Structures are given as C-alpha cells and as structure tokens.
C-alpha cells in the first residue's frame, strides 16, 4: 500500500513539472535564460541541458544533506553547490562545445541565479528523500526544456526562417521577421504563449 502511494506521488511529481507547475509557463521562473537564449533552438537546447545537469546535481546533494542543514545557513549552502555545478557545466561547454559556449555567452554562468534551481532546492530537495528529489528535478527539467523548445522554435522560425539552422521558410516568399530574434521579440512571443497556455488551462478546468 505504501509503495503504491509513493508511486502515485512520484508520477505526479514528475508530470507537475511538465505542465501544472511548468517552471516557465506556470511559475514564471528562470525568465532570464528563457528570454535571452531562445532566438534559436540549438542554444536553447544547450541551455536546457546545462540547467538539467545543475538542477539534478543540486537536488541530489541538497536532498542527501537535508538533515544536516542549519536553517540560517541553507541558502549559503545552496548557492555554494549551485555555483560549483554551474562552473563545471561552463567548463565542459568551453572544452567540448566552444561554439555553443560562445553563443550562450554569460548566460551559462547566470544559471547560478536561476530561481528554478534554488526554488526546487528549497521547496522540494531540502524536505524530501533522494528519489522524490531526483524525480522532481527531472520533471522540472523536462518542463523547462519543453518551454524553451517551444519558444525558440517559434522565434527561430519567424525570425530567421530556419529550424536548427536548416532553412524551412526561405524559398522566396518569406522575409525573416528580424525583430522576433531581438529581445523585444522574446517578450512578445513569451507573452502570447503565456496567454495561449492560460486559455488552454482555463478550458481544461
């Protein structure tokens, strides 16, 4: 019986991150990378991968030491660990994907202040066991990746007429809508997508 309850919780924890509590579309967290790196799909996917790595590592380590954490020092501990994992991810990108590292610029280092990661450490990993924390990190990461992919596909398609760098809309009749690739276009696309998600959620209620 206990195992069954646990199983249901795990499934819910995982799917919550993808839709009900999608970090970007529902909780509006991690807006900095969401707006900054979604001009094309490739950098958006790389950013999602980095966030997944950091979120997973941070949730695992916070969950493992949750009983040792002193309440007034916990934020310091979270930041220390998150900063370490982000720096590792940044070094790996520089060594194995230098083009992507250049394209993402300072935004990889800025994962340190991404609210999704510290938020999950505080709300989930510091209170739950390892399995729940890992499931939560995976769910949130899939949700974040999904949001970034949707946003970057729309922006790359309209802003450059390409997807993954391959021309899709460039056979003469389509003029790339450059402003969608610019920061203003990020706000516009995100706003419209949020509106759409709100409509879908209301209808489903």
């Amino acid at each position: 019986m206990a195992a069954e309850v646990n199983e249901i919780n795990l499934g819910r924890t995982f799917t919550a991150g993808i839709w009900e509590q999608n970090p970007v579309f529902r909780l509006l967290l991690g807006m900095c990378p969401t707006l900054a790196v979604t001009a094309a799909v490739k950098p958006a996917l790389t950013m999602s991968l980095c966030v997944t790595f950091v979120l997973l590592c941070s949730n695992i380590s916070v969950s493992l030491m949750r009983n040792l954490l002193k309440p007034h020092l916990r934020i310091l501990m979270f930041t220390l660990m998150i900063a370490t994992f982000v720096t590792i991810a940044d070094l790996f990108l520089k060594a194995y994907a230098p083009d992507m590292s250049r394209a993402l610029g300072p935004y990889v280092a800025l994962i340190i202040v991404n609210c999704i990661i510290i938020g999950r450490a505080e709300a989930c990993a510091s209170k739950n066991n390892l399995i729940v924390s890992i499931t939560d990190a995976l769910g949130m990461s899939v949700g974040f990746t999904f949001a970034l992919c949707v946003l970057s596909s729309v922006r790359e398609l309209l802003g450059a007429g390409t997807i993954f760098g391959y021309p899709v809309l460039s056979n003469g009749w389509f003029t790339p809508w450059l402003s969608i690739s610019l920061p203003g276009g990020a706000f516009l696309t995100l706003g419209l997508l949020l509106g759409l998600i709100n409509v879908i959620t209301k209808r489903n209620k």
Partner: protein
Amino acid sequence: MRSIKHFIEQSWLLITAAFLCGLLLALTNAALEPRIQRIEIGEMYDKMKSLMPQADKFEKVIPQAEIAGNPTDVYEAIDKNKQVLGFSFVGTGYGFADQIKLVIAVNADASKLLGFDVLYSNETPGFGSRMTENWFRQQFVDAPTGTLELIKSGQADKEKDQILALSGATVTSTAVVNIFNNHIGALKKLLKEKGLIQ
C-alpha cells in the same frame, strides 16, 4: 571556548562543503584547461591563416605585448621561402553589448592592413553581428595603416582610409574602426622598437 564550539557546530558543514566544492572545481579545471587552451589557440591560428593564406607558420615574436592597453601576443607570419608575410595580433574594444575581439593582420612593413576576423563578439543578431560579412571585412583589406574614417553612407574610398558603416549598426561599426585606430599606431611603434620593421 564555548563560542568556538558553537561556531564549529554551526558551520562545519559549510566549511567542509566549501573545501569539497573547491577541490571539485580545481580537479575539473585541471582536467579541462589544456583542452580549452588548445581550442582558443587553434581558433586564433585558423583566423590568422584565413587572413594570410600563404603563411606556412606563425611565430610568436612578441609574447604578452601590451597594445593600446590590451594584452596580446604578436605573431609573425612566415611563408615557405622563409619570407615574412606580415604580423598578427588580437585587438580588443567595446561594441554595442559586449567586448569585441578581432584578429588583425598587417603586411610585412606594417604599411597596409591585411584584414580582420572576429575572435569574440556578442553583438545584436542581424545588426552588429553583420560585421563578419565579407563586404564589410573586405573594406579593411589593403587599406593603408593610417587613421581610418567611418562614413555612414555613400561610396567609401579605400585610398582615403574610408570605411562604410553597417546600416543600423553604427555603434558596432565605430567600435571596429576604433579598434583599428587605437591599435595599429601602437603596433607599428612596438614593431619598430623591437626592430621587426624599419
């Protein structure tokens, strides 16, 4: 005595974690640093080679030079007949959003530019990022190494050191021209001091 005990009780986890994280970072850095450096040097060589295709090898003639306040190595390009083709270095300046780093090449007596290539930039896509376009870069090839002048419209006259700006990206165009104007004079002086040009 009690306060020390209290301090250790409260902070032992943080101190241990700080040491462990530091160790982890040091190990990762030690493992990846050579690879990262190789990539950066390789990229610099590729750009120099594209600016001086006849070059057979590049020799670091002035390591860690300071040109216009920016540290860079100065390389000498040598062809198969051991003739000096020119010199190359990295020029740095500020663009619209971030630093711009250019690999710049001049000919053997530093009288003409051989062009530039972008080593690092973070300019606005579709506007400042067009500084990598061929027509813009070609304007610098064979231009005299005097002070360059940026013009915003019309036909640029290379003999008069004129460079036509990228439309909609005046800040980036000015930054590129300023990098040349700030560095080339200082480079010539440095090369003369070291006896590499007359």
